[in-house]
């Protein structure tokens, strides 16, 4: 397992995810992916679900990957990587590995569309089968690759192009699916949440390193603030991610072996959700008088969930 010491040391890691990709300026995907693939010195085979990361990092004739990489479809990043992992096991057993001297780790990336929704079956199946891989969800709370449609990860109240705000609508009507807990319920040995950026960089990198060194299926749900569809300025990506943590809209925690929950970061003073919501255009309509009740509801829900996490951690079961 790669020791994630200080950032000065981590920054010596030669980048395995190259620039020159076509993600939006300020896209959190680039930050998260770099941290994950740099969090191990082992060789990597990566699969990526259709989505922003996929289309932007492998537009023929260019690839942004210094590691082996595969894209098949929207719904099958986990199935694809499970096949590659199975081949590694098979060749290893038959003494036919290509590089005997190298360890190979397997990583799949998917957006929330490819993970929460269309790819969920494939992820659930690969996890249940116990393949040795890390799945990272780049959770930007909607189908941003196709212009910002809702997903089951879109939070209540958010405007998207298929859950639009309107004269009689406050936007998305349903609560964000709690995928992290669902993945933990698979009994996966390691499941965690993370955000990009400079404040919680070590949380993410250490989680990736831990997941990659854990035998069996592991899962990281990384919030990926989307400058284009959440509607904030590109330079604010890191701040928005940090605010998601400070408001407890997206708490940082990990669950080991399906049950042992640890909260990795506790805000000193929990910031009201308005702070987070008001900085994003997708929530601007919530500040109209007729929608204010929803902000209160969101706050209640966030408080309830934060309480739940803390009690579960205390229970230590």
């Amino acid at each position: 397992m790669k020791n994630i010491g200080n950032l000065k040391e981590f920054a010596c890691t030669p980048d395995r995810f190259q620039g020159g990709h076509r993600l939006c300026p300020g896209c959190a995907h680039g930050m998260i992916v770099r941290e994950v693939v740099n969090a191990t010195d082992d060789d990597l085979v990566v699969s990526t679900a259709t989505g922003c990361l996929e289309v932007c990092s492998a537009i023929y004739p260019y690839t942004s990957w210094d590691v082996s990489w595969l894209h098949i479809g929207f719904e099958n990043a986990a199935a694809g990587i499970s096949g590659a992992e199975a081949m590694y096991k098979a060749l290893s057993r038959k003494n036919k590995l290509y590089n005997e001297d190298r360890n190979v780790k397997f990583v799949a990336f998917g957006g929330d569309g490819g993970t929460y929704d269309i790819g969920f079956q494939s992820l659930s199946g690969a996890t249940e089968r116990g393949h040795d891989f890390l799945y990272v969800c780049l959770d930007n709370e909607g189908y941003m690759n196709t212009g910002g449609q809702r997903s089951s990860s879109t939070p209540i109240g958010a405007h998207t192009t298929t859950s639009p705000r309107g004269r009689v609508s406050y936007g998305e009507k349903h609560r964000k699916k709690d995928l992290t807990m669902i993945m933990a319920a698979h009994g996966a040995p390691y499941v965690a949440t993370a955000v990009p950026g400079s404040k919680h960089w070590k949380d993410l990198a250490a989680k990736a390193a831990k997941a990659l060194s854990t035998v069996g299926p592991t899962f990281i749900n990384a919030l990926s603030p989307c400058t284009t569809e959440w509607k904030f300025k590109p330079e604010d990506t890191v701040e928005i991610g940090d605010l998601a943590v400070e408001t407890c809209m997206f708490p940082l925690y990990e669950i080991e072996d399906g049950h042992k929950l640890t909260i990795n970061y506790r805000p000193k003073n929990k910031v009201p959700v308005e702070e987070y919501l008001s900085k994003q255009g997708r929530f601007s309509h919530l500040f109209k008088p007729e929608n204010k009740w929803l902000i209160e509801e969101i706050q209640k829900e966030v408080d309830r969930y934060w309480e739940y996490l803390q009690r579960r951690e205390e229970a230590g079961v």
Partner: protein
Amino acid sequence: MAERYELKQKEVWDGNMAASHALRQAQVDVVAAYPITPSTPIVQNYAQFLADGYVDGEFVMVESEHSAMSACVGASAAGGRVATATSSQGYALMVEVLYQASGMRLPIVMTVVNRALASPLNIHGDHGDLYLGRDAGWIHLIANNPQEAYDMTLCAFKIAENEKVRLPVTTNQDGFLVSHTAQVVEPLDDDTAYKFIGDYKAMNPMLDTKNPQTYGAQTEEEWHFEFKASQHKALMESPAVIDEVFAEFEKLTGRKYNRVETYKLDDADVALVVMGSAYETAMVAVDKAREEGIKAGLIMPRSFRPFPYNEIAEKLKNVKAVAALDRSAPMGAMGALYNEVSGALAANGQSSIMTNYIYGLGGRDTTAQHILEVIKETEKNAKAGKRVTDLQGFINLRGPKLSFN
């Protein structure tokens, strides 16, 4: 190292068992599969071979056919020999990924047990699934009995993995009529079979992580056409390799396969084009017709894709009337065999009279007598020198005669 499986010179195997033994003998590195009737026994047999130590590779029991083919793509791109099996709805669920497997030029072998597509639901044999996958960029080989299911599967690996081809291959056998029908099969011993296929030669394996490769890049307007053209060319030029492999197989076993099979066609006035187990039933019908003085013959594309246009046109050049028998619901058109064969003939200015018959949907029984009736109808066209029968007719359908003109 996997145990050798002691085989008798003659085994009584159904098509499924025959296909599973071929997969086992190929020492496939990864089989990722999901069971579906009537190909389920292939998956079960393979699992048992694994449980008994006759297989060394990984067997991944996935949660859907979509994931089965996806895992096959991942495994194949990783760099080893890969196979799976499916039928019908499972095939339909895989279709998206079939295109991706062929586009990435991954030599996956899939033993397909052909079955009708719902709705209404039906577990029995027709060619609806095969026709669904016909543009997916795979080579499709046809097996008419368990022996051929075994032989074609062995040949499939050798064709798929040839560096000039590098395309995925399906071997097709009729659900139940072949898959669940036990017949005498003469297998090769394990070593001979493996030697025939040879070791897997990887191209651009992802697991050679010192030399990383990117699979599945996005190509837009400026590249996609070139890639599809290049892929099509590989498919169009694969016959040379298929012929080579069949010739080598004949040397080894004495069993001769051709991309175009014929039966008593040389002097025929009337020919039927038919694929699958019905081809053999039709042999019985042809013999009966000849007893009655009708010069009938048969022709079958053993490789449905790439379709042997020129060879079929050449072999049919002296035939006066041709009936194409398609085992798939036509849905607003003539059957695929009718269209392909008509096109082949038209390209050469040949003037056989063409008719189309739909038979055997959902496993409906098609007897030699049914086929004999088709031969007799077709002979009317041959005699008249013009088409006097309907363009498309249905065989052994309950109720009033259904035909279209």
